[in-house]
């Protein structure tokens, strides 16, 4: 996940979607039939950018609704404003937005201590307990997995002082979302989550527990080999809102059949491809949680008054070449426009916003702008599909 730079000038409508407290159709705790009794589109989640609620306050922030249930029960809650993040793995929800009580379903280390987790993202970190929950994506069968209950005060900690050893998000308002649906193409976070064994007032570092947080897509009964994210294109001046789709599975149904795409396989260790820009090769990745395209180019001036954004005097048209481990390559044409001008338009979705990389990381971050006007396939590591075995990206 990365984040935004421009403060939205958009006026909020009076209607703000609050965290849904309604009960979803989850009376049955069985895993249910596959396609037989379900709609053909049960693998689809609408993705809103700029629609309303917390996420609308941030440019280029794509969000979905996710239904969470007490394991095996009909007690369910649909949570809005969940950031769709291809840059992380795991479902993470602020405990404060839940009306459900997970206190009897917290994961423990087997000796009575509750498991805590710290996850460090690009611009911040989250802290909280790990709970077993039933999760419903779209109209898929519910799956039972460990999720992260984000709570800066868990185990007597605080936003400023906690086992992350850095500031963590204290509230959904602070974070700009109610939670994160991390669905990068791996079953687990591959060691990026840091786990602790906690009493009510103290925590000790723990190795990776057996009940670590998992990618909810990877545990679906059928549509578990990856996903498809598709958004309509927007004008160069942006759009107020955009609705796209997350389709679970690749080639598992008629609505997620790929055709005519370039498949770029990813490095299994780093998760990256190679992006060649102006003669330099960078590790590249596709991240819906990054609001801009982030890359290094000293030739593009930064904005004087907006932090970390590009402000060329007129839009610049650029080219980069993405190359997979399989040597397949794909040329991408893109534009970077003046972030000040775009921000003043009042729109909330742009395909031509960029900003400089912080130098030490030297990566090419294909953020949300890349996904606009495209259909992007993310193949789950070790799972087969008509596009081959993951991890890969294809578009």
């Amino acid at each position, binding site marked *: 996940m*990365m984040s935004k730079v421009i403060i939205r000038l958009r006026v909020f409508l009076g209607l703000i979607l609050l965290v849904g407290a309604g009960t979803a159709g989850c009376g049955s705790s069985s895993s249910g039939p596959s396609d037989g009794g379900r709609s053909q589109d049960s693998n689809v989640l609408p993705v809103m950018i700029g629609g309303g609620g917390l996420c609308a306050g941030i440019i280029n922030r794509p969000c979905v609704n996710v239904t969470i249930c007490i394991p095996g029960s009909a007690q369910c809650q649909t949570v809005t404003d969940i950031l769709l993040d291809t840059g992380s793995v795991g479902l993470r929800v602020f405990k404060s937005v839940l009306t459900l009580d997970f206190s009897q379903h917290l994961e423990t280390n087997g000796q009575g201590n509750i498991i805590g987790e710290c996850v460090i993202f690009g611009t911040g970190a989250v802290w909280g307990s790990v709970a077993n929950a039933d999760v419903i994506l779209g109209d898929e069968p519910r799956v039972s997995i460990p999720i992260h209950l984000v709570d800066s005060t868990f185990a007597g900690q605080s936003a400023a*002082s906690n086992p992350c050893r850095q500031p963590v998000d204290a509230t959904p308002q602070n974070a700009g979302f109610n939670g994160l649906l991390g669905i990068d193409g791996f079953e687990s976070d591959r060691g990026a989550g840091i786990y602790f064994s906690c009493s009510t007032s103290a925590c000790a570092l723990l190795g990776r527990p057996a009940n670590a947080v998992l990618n909810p897509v990877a545990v679906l009964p059928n549509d578990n080999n990856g996903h498809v994210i598709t958004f309509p294109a927007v004008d160069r001046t942006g759009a107020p809102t955009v609705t796209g789709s997350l389709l679970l599975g690749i080639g598992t149904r008629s609505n997620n059949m790929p055709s005519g795409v370039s498949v770029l396989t990813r490095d299994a260790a780093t998760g990256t491809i190679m992006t060649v820009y102006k003669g330099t090769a960078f590790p590249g990745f596709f991240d819906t949680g990054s609001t801009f395209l982030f890359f290094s180019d000293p030739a593009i001036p930064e904005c004087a008054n907006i932090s970390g954004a590009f402000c060329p005097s007129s839009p610049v048209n650029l080219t980069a070449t993405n190359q997979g481990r399989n040597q397949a390559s794909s040329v991408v044409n893109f534009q970077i426009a003046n972030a000040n001008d775009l921000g003043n338009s009042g729109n909330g979705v742009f395909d031509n916003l960029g900003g400089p990389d912080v130098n030490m990381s030297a990566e090419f971050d294909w953020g949300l702008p890349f996904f606009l006007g495209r259909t992007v396939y993310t193949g789950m590591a070790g799972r087969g599909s008509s596009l081959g075995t993951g991890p890969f990206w294809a578009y």
Partner: protein
Amino acid sequence: MARPVFPALGEPLASIERDQQLLQATQTVQQQTGFTVHILTAPGAVVREYASPAGVVFALAWQHRMGLLDLEVLFGSYYQEYAQAMTMQASEARQSPRMTTEHLIVERRGRMGAASGRVLVIPLLPPGLSQDHIQ
């Protein structure tokens, strides 16, 4: 075996030998014009400490993939200023890649499992240097 020296932001090099159990680093030193860079390489992280000729750490840059990176220790006496800014600001400003506080410019980037950042103490910046030197 070189014992890792782990200076904190704004503190003198010589006074600090913080034993980082979390960052079991090896250290190399680069002499640059007008400052010294102490590069601490640890499993999962690289931290660069920028020290003035007077031996005061005026900036840090880090790259972090795995495990904990103790910003509370690294930021030293400036940590509370940073933590307060992070927890008090609205999401727009809070999530900007660059944050300016009374004494600090902090920049952070990346994603889960691959984060990087840098911090500069504005009043401690040696004459003639800018944030472009912190890389």
